[in-house]
């Protein structure tokens, strides 16, 4: 075998989660909301994969779909596969899913205040999670919780165990949430916009925690954000989403320096960046599409500066630019 082939094979073996053509629709009384409409990506061991996009693009629903955490009467996975271990998470039973939730795949939500139960101490909440999955007695579970809290940088962790969520600041709560998600040593951590609702200095601290997780624990992470600057700081590869589909996938350095999809380059340009010196900000005209009234053809065409006639008629298929870089855009067919 040639070295290159070996390398490719090793990479493939490294895939820990593979999402293929995932479709999650919400059947509401006003019509069908195609929140996720054919999303495809893979998560490799030890990497930080970023799902990037603005509100309404389907990135949160994608993450919720992996653990099937959305409300099931309106929402349903109507197609595709989510392959983890030997299971297809889109099809497996709820019992199997419950064993995976929290233990193999953990999720950290955005609003730290709503994700924590206000009438339980944080110690109780962490211990509850631990005892759900690990066969530890109360004392050992408690010790484990304290270790986790101090690892997250919470001062006097033992005393902090008896705090209620409202006694903690926003940054602290986010750290408690991350500690909770790590309590059962998951293989995959899904973080849904953990830095969006916090101040800049706390954002830096939290990003630091995620960096540590990658180096010290080799944690495979799916990091959801709308902030490309965060992606640049912490991501290895990025999947840019728009209108429920993935429009560009590439390593982060590629995406930043050589974006192919007009939406990606638009996003990069309109970021107010401290290191840039322009007077006027570039912007993307128009607004994100109403999920009940998606445009025909390519969902981005009404706002695309390079839209062609075919973009209004036909959805673009995926083009492979290089081994690690794929785009869905008619510009490259």
């Amino acid at each position: 075998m040639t070295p290159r082939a070996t390398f490719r094979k090793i990479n493939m073996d490294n895939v820990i989660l593979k999402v293929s053509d995932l479709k999650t629709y919400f059947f509401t009384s006003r019509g069908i909301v195609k929140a996720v409409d054919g999303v495809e990506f893979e998560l490799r061991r030890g990497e930080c994969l970023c799902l990037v996009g603005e509100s309404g693009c389907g990135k949160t629903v994608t993450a919720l779909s992996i653990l099937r955490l959305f409300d099931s009467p309106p929402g349903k996975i109507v197609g595709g596969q989510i392959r983890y271990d030997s299971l297809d998470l889109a099809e497996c039973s709820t019992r199997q899913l419950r064993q995976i939730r929290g233990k193999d795949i953990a999720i950290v939500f955005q609003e730290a205040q709503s994700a924590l139960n206000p009438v339980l101490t944080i110690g109780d909440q962490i211990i509850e999670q631990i005892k759900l999955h690990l066969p530890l007695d109360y004392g050992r579970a408690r010790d484990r919780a304290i270790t986790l809290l101090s690892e997250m940088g919470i001062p006097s962790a033992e005393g902090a165990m008896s705090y209620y969520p409202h006694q903690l600041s926003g940054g602290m709560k986010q750290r408690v949430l991350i500690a909770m998600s790590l309590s059962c040593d998951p293989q995959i951590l899904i973080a849904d916009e953990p830095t969006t609702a916090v101040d800049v200095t706390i954002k830096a601290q939290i990003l630091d925690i995620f960096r540590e997780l990658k180096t010290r624990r080799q944690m495979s992470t799916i990091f959801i954000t709308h902030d490309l600057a965060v992606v640049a700081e912490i991501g290895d590869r990025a999947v840019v989403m728009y209108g429920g589909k993935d429009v560009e996938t590439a390593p982060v350095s590629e995406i930043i320096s050589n974006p192919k999809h007009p939406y990606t380059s638009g996003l990069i340009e309109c970021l107010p960046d401290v290191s840039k010196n322009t007077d006027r900000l570039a912007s993307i005209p128009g607004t994100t599409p109403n999920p009940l009234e998606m445009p025909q053809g390519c969902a981005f065409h009404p706002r695309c500066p390079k839209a062609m006639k075919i973009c209004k008629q036909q959805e673009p298929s995926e083009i492979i630019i290089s081994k690690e870089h794929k785009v869905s855009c008619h510009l490259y067919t």
Partner: protein
Amino acid sequence: MKNKLNNKLLQIRNLKKYYPVTAGFFSRHIGDIKAVDGVTFDISEREIIGLVGESGCGKSTLGKTIPRLEEPTSGQILYKRSDVTKLDKKGLGELRREIQIIFQDPDASLDPRMTVGDSICEPLIVHNIGNEKKRMERVAELMEQVGLEARQANMYPHEFSGGQKQRIGIARALAMNPKLIIADEPVSALDVSIQAQILNLMMDIQERLGLAYLFIAHDLAVIKHMAHRVAIMYLGKIVELADKKEIFENPLHPYTEALLSAVPSFKPKDKDRILLRGDVPSPLNPPPGCHFHPRCHRILPICNQQEPELAEVSKGHFVACHLYR
């Protein structure tokens, strides 16, 4: 952005806003939340001042106290040389024509039961300007100015997107031809691509109408594009105030340095990121001496004993820090 010798529009001198905290059955006064604790700065005509700070630093309170939506505890607010704190109802009404506010949450700042046209022309009705017909014309004019169509005036807020609602808020603020607009985190709740649109709109309007802005934000990157001068706030006090260029290229206060280095960016950092320890302390019980000292990476022995004063270190560059005495 030339700094012409513009007239001073707003002069704030040692403004304080305390919220008393009571406890016990007889509501004993046990302390104060010092939301704004002695703030002094000026805004000139046509100037954009960026006010930056993290949550809890008092910037929103400051924004609300200036037009007396919150009553100041002490200090002076001079608008065009008349003391705002001493205005009577009539004077306050006239002040409200010249100082307007744009709010953060576009969903919450519009009355859901009023058409957007009614919302925009409400200031005109309140101040008895024009008649029905003239008001309709003005509403149409304002909507076009902010990039919406006049025929949308009869629609309700829920029929618009977040960015459009924020435009309506801006139109409402412009209705009275104000001189100063206090923008309280106007783009924080919007998507990135929409943020850029709204910021561009605000800059256009500022140039065209010759407005002054007090632009409150927690995001330094946004400030960099908009502001002429920048003030950094921490726990109710201004810790640094300078021209934009100075702040970004030559930050003096350790907190400013930390803020700048904390912003995620594309360029790799030359020096190590400064990570502040701990969290923002509670405004009920600020640390003694310099409020920032527990988290400061360049602390001196004097810092936990004496509060530093805001002093001019170089031309137009003010810092409140013992490092520069």
